[in-house]
């Protein structure tokens, strides 16, 4: 599929090259996938199907004016070429009317690349056979997604980039009753039934604990351990404007007070964008190559924000080839010193939070977040798990939780592949440790 799609994309890019006028330039972008999606409830198939979609975008540039349009490829070359001609004509008319874009920056330096990751995936039906047979008797609910993703860029300067990857992402939970469940995931590029079986066994062992009478705690401040999946939720919300240069310049970043030095984080906090270790393509829709590693926060101090070409043009300085949202695609939070095997001992008495859910800012400029505990979050006393926790709402500033109240981060990080599938399957990932925090505020 890759070679065919790549050839087809290049044919269309070459065709545009022959159709543009002397004073015109273009960039084009392909975002495609051929994915199976199987939704599961009560360890049975709820909805199963396949999506094949190729979205092709073209940006026509004349001087400092430009206009963009997208359409879905039919794979019939004549049909798609006719569509492209119509679009180019429409974009020309739009460009005649549009004012100049003062922040337009074009990737004129040619940086072509090809990154094809061929993988050893099971067929989706075989993987589903494994999932359904191994989960028999359990109340398993979730989504299995598998298939090929591809991204491509081309422009009138001759740059050509191609990225394709096949992977699977099985995001699931096993329920005991009500809202009590163990959340798990199994994602990667090589399906292994034994690995899935081991993960299911681990989940099964926790189910009896989920059946215990849940511990109800009163609002107040508690010592809490946040497992990597929970820390990842904090990082995901921080990525909403927190590391963006544009948000910094317009004073909207939730980390703005860190940027100005008014606030600080613990010296244990070091965060970087690590495209080199992620699974996302290293180029974007404008054709700029992403910096392999960008230190964002080092030892609790703001280092730099992620910067797109457009923002660099507006505010000056160098860009990192970041996307328009200037949000990390492969965030890494550095590990700490906390021994992974002594978490309960170090927690002593407090909350073991396996997952957080539905985070948002309760005071964005104070980097104060709120959100809920979810899934197998536990009450621990004297280093021993006592009971599942009735869901609790935290409301806390990260300048406290990841500042003076951060005791330590675990000495091991967990790699998480984003299971998100809005519009298309995500290629984002993250690598984060767990965090032990004192006096974390729970409000409801």
């Amino acid at each position, binding site marked *: 599929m890759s070679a065919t799609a790549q050839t087809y994309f290049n044919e269309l890019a070459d065709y545009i090259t022959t159709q543009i006028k002397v004073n015109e330039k273009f960039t084009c972008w392909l975002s495609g996938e051929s994915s199976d999606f*199987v*939704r599961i*409830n*009560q360890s*049975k*198939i*709820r*909805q*199963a*199907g*396949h*999506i*094949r*979609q*190729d979205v092709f975008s073209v940006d026509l540039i004349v001087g400092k004016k430009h206009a963009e349009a997208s359409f879905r*490829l*039919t*794979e019939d070359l004549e049909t798609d070429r006719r569509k492209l001609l119509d679009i180019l004509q429409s974009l020309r008319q*739009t460009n005649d*009317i549009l*004012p100049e874009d003062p922040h337009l920056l074009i990737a004129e330096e040619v940086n072509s690349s090809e990154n094809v990751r061929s993988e050893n995936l099971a067929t989706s*039906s075989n993987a589903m056979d494994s999932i359904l047979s191994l989960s028999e008797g359990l*109340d398993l*609910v*979730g*989504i299995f*997604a598998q298939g090929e993703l591809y991204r491509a860029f081309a422009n009138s300067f001759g740059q050509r980039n191609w990225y394709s990857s096949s992977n699977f992402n099985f*995001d*699931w*939970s096993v329920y005991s009753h*009500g*809202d009590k469940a163990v*959340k798990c995931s199994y994602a990667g590029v090589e399906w292994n039934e034994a690995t899935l079986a081991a993960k299911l066994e681990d989940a099964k062992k926790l189910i009896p604990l989920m059946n215990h009478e849940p511990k109800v705690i009163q609002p107040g401040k508690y010592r809490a351990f946040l497992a990597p999946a929970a820390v990842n939720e904090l990082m995901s919300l921080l990525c909403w404007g927190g590391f963006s240069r544009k948000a910094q310049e*317009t*004073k*909207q970043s939730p980390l*703005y007070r860190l940027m*100005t030095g008014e606030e600080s984080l613990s010296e244990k906090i070091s965060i970087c964008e690590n495209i080199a270790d992620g699974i996302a393509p290293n180029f974007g829709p404008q054709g700029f190559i992403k910096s392999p590693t960008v230190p964002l926060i080092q030892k609790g101090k703001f280092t730099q924000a992620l910067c797109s070409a457009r923002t660099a043009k507006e505010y000056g300085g160098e860009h990192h080839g970041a996307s328009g949202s200037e949000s990390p695609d492969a965030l890494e939070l550095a590990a700490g010193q906390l021994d992974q095997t002594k978490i309960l001992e170090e927690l002593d008495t407090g909350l073991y939070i396996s997952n957080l*859910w*539905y*985070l*948002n*800012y*309760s*005071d*964005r*400029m*104070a980097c*104060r977040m*709120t959100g*809920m505990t*979810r899934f197998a979050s536990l009450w621990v006393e004297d280093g021993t798990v006592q009971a599942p926790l009735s*869901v609790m*709402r935290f*409301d806390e*500033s990260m300048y406290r939780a990841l500042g003076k109240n951060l005791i330590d981060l675990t000495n091991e990080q967990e790699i998480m592949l984003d299971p998100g*599938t*809005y519009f298309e399957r995500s290629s984002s990932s993250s690598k984060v440790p767990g965090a032990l925090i004192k006096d974390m505020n729970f*409000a*409801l």
Partner: protein
Amino acid sequence: MVTLRNRSGSGYAGTSVVTEKGLQEAVQRADRWASLSGQDPLIDYSSLEMNSLKADYKSRVDKSWDSSTLDEKIKLLMTINHKLKCDDRIVDWSAGLTRVETEILYSNSAGANIEQSFVFLMPSIRVFANEGGETIRRSFVDRCHQGGLEILAQTQFHDRANVLAAEAIHLLQSDNCPSTSCDLILAPDQMMLQIHESIGHPLELDRILGDERNYAGTSFVTLDMLGSYQYGSELLNVTFDPTVSGELASYAADDEGTKARREYLIKDGILKRPIGGKTSQHRADISGVACTRASSWNRPPIDRMANINVETGQSTLEELISSVENGVLMETNLSWSIDDSRNKFQFGCEKGQLIQDGKLTDLVKNPGYRGVSSNFWRNLKGVSDSRSSDTYGTPYCGKGEPNQIIRVGHGSPYCLFSEIEVFGGDK
């Protein structure tokens, strides 16, 4: 997208490759998934009849998009932008117009044929004011409707900029909302979020049946509550209504071919029915509404809100305000978070205004409130009449695996709640 049923099973395939070969491949893939899902089905599709409805629908458009040139639209937005940048403390500002046209054709082997043509208009204005480490946002983003450029006049789009910018600057200089328990009046542009999160989502039947437990969550509502549960005070009346002309999620039929009808979800405070379409109704053996929708051709249909509206009451807004001895009026959603059972929530607003001895007084910044859905609506003690009611809509309701976002509408009057925990910002 093609959906095939094979005895008990069902499978789908969506493709952008609409050649004969591409469609054949889609049919084969759908058939394979139908066969596999039918081996040990969660839902027995062999006993679920398909609809045979014939219908059509067109959004009403009084003033077409092309009645104004692109140049004129750009000039309008630039004029609004100039008005927004009225002070050095305004650090970011924008205005936009988004129009979407969508055509949906549904047909099936039972003879259904439904053609629907939608036109959506989504105007937006955002302005940010800053001083020191404090930045305040005011916005106008949720007046999304079906229709044409007539919506701009109906929503006073041209006149919003000066007020929003002035309020952002005023709020910068205001105190934080106090932390206390008091009366709370929510404006329609915050009620839309309150309705959405703590009535709409918990009433979705597929959540109640467990489909969403791994992602969007479950529900504190259970099937045995239908028909008897006291969801709110007797002032609470909530309808599922895809028949309101111009509201964002109006249609003639859902994506299973079920005819759209207005239905009470909650009447006089009592829970009447869930938001569940034909398939979910079949699974739970209860009645529901025409709500099975897909975000686009590349996602399968699931239970979705359409327009979920709180019906108007008898009080004027002035009467609501004058009945409050100590309280806060909050406007325009800024932050939203709720637990996976849709019970414990915490919401933030852009603008707060204190109410003391029946009168609106000082503006307060960073206003927020928290509560529990199952108690909150029982504290509803005032609902304003149609003169202060308004309709809103958002294109960003997220749910489902694979994930999908969809358009929903919410109409509401001002509502007064008693004894609500409110709070402000950190500094």
